[in-house]
């Protein structure tokens, strides 16, 4: 399967999975519980499935390893994001603190995965 087709499939599957988890999140109350679906592995599930079918086990395994670092960085971003939101509002607070994810994820990747 060509790389372009794989990328397109990952895009379509990722978008669909995000919509599915968003719909689940909309239906759940209270908001604190629904927020769990905000950090659902929607894109990961779609991408790993397509990678497994189209590229093989090794690629999916390598992606999973990278995701461990990304998920650890996600926890750091969310924790900092709570204070960011309180102080700066949703848009500024969440966008400006995204730097925390980049620093954490790239540091973990450089130390453990490269």
């Amino acid at each position: 399967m060509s790389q372009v087709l794989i990328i397109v499939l990952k895009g379509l599957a990722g978008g669909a999975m995000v919509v599915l988890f968003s719909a689940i999140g909309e239906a759940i109350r209270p908001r604190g519980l629904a927020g769990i679906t905000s950090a659902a592995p929607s894109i990961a599930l779609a991408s790993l499935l397509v990678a497994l079918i189209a590229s093989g086990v090794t690629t999916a395994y390598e992606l999973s390893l990278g995701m461990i670092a990304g998920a650890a960085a996600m926890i750091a971003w969310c924790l900092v994001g709570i204070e960011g939101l309180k102080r700066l509002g949703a848009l500024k607070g969440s966008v400006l603190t995204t730097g925390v994810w980049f620093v954490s994820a790239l540091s973990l990747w450089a130390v453990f995965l490269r």
Partner: protein
Amino acid sequence: MALRDAERPLQERPAVEVAKARSARRSAYLIRFGFGAAVSVLAAVLGLAGGHRFGGLFLAFPAILPAALTLLEKKEGLAQAVSDVRGAVIGAVGMLAFAVVAAQLMRSATPVALPAALGAWVITSAAVYVLMRSLVHVFGERQYMPEIPTVEALPVITALRERRLSIAVAESCTGGAIAALLTAVPGAGAVMRGGVVAYDDGVKQDTLGVSPEVIAERGSVNAAVAREMAQGVKQRLRADVGLAITGLLGPHDGDEEGATYIALCMPDGRVLLRHYAEDHGPGRNRERDIRMALRLVLDGVSGEPH
């Protein structure tokens, strides 16, 4: 009769409301589809350029959350957005479990790797959520109103205490939130006389003495009603200053969504008025109204230029 502790709803119970998912706008889902597709493509391209481990990082990139939080803040207020991020912390811990299980099983038990990883996300998230709820039960919520910390009302209470002025509050659109915030400040008892939630026009007339003619002629959201509410609550609760607020928080309250009138009746009978017309969505309108009301009291009693 006071509720027994067992009957008191300390926290909202978990529930699934399918109608809520159906009522969400199609455009919101389309935006999320676009974000999801874009991040998936980005992760795939970066994987090709920098290796699959590098691309894998972006399978846990928080790209959709900022957009979702911004929409949520506009619709339901900052407190709900903060609650959502708190939930996202739990989901992120689950996401880490997902990645670890996927990596562990991908080569040794390929067919079950992804279902098991998804199960790990659900179980881990649920376990952390239950743990967090238990901790809240044990330690209690630290903030009464997370969207506007009590500390923001402190200068108002301090200014009133320094000038030995008492205050009474009449609220329509904020439903008692200003009084709740003021009374959450330690020492509020020295200055706070009380409040009236005059949500219904009849209460505005009967309890606060707002003129029925004014309401019949111009409705209940205008400067004249706010003025009479402030004068009425000051007089009837025998306070030195009377604060009043009336507004349309939207989105179902009429054409002037977001319009609010705030009035402060001073000890000498002068009335200071503020009007805000911009619509930021019901959640943020409410926060703005509470903050602006607090600021008006602070400016009024401090003698700042208005």
